């Protein structure tokens, strides 16, 4: 499986109700969404470097969102990352800053996520 590039949003969240709702919201806004229940599942899928954007939760069993960001940045310095978390502790804020990611604190306004994804994809597509 090779993931399609460009306007794709890669969504990683272990919490199914939130994952489903984000996917439906972004799809109604015209984005193409591929969702994953874990960070490992996402990293196992090959994708084009620098295309699309990542929306990821932080607190996930197994590999956390922080570990995911680190792993992504080793290979891909430019893909936009939007971090969504209910617990924006100092370690999270630091990691977000280092990865030049965007932080949204749950529960965020859905329009805010849509705006951030739009911005991210505009940048991602050059």
């Amino acid at each position, binding site marked *: 499986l090779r993931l399609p590039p460009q306007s794709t949003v890669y969504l990683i969240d272990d919490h199914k109700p939130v994952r489903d709702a984000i996917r439906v919201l972004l*799809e109604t806004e015209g984005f193409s969404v591929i969702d994953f229940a874990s960070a490992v599942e996402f990293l196992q899928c090959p994708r084009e470097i620098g295309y699309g954007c990542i929306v990821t939760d932080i607190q996930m069993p197994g590999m956390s969102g922080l570990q995911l960001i680190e792993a992504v940045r080793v290979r891909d310095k430019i893909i936009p990352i939007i971090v969504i978390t209910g617990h924006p502790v100092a370690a999270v804020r630091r990691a977000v800053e280092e990865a030049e990611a965007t932080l949204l604190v749950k529960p965020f306004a859905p329009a805010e996520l849509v705006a951030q994804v739009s911005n991210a994809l505009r940048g991602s597509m050059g």
Partner: protein
Amino acid sequence: MLPKPDELRGLSERFIQAVEKVTAIELRKRLAAHALTLAQVAEQLERGDLLSAFVHNANVERYERLLAGALDEETRAMVERLLAEEDDVALQKQRDQAKWWQMRAEELRATANQFAEPSAHEMLLRAAANYEQLANHAEGLVTGKPKARGEKAG
């Protein structure tokens, strides 16, 4: 008082189902946004149980504000209406299917009576009984009451 996380999650699922029934793009967006808010607040309330009561209480007002649109009576009633219309269509399909099977059963019984040869007669009656069972099963799904063997559907 805020609803329980289970209730919010259930509502979020219903809003998502409603999104799939709607073609008007703005309404789809609005329902999807409400679904996300409901799911997020459910998640935070659940995780909030693990945090201090102070943190939880500090957030209640914010959650109530976020949920106001989704929990609005009119919006919820609209979602239920959309889903009820869908249920009606599914029920009618089920009823039609039950009627069709019942008619097949009656046709096969009438055909069986035209056969003097015992094995053919018996085979057709068995097929008729099977169709009748299917009809009863389908009718039982519609009414929520399974019919007894031999009782006619429709």
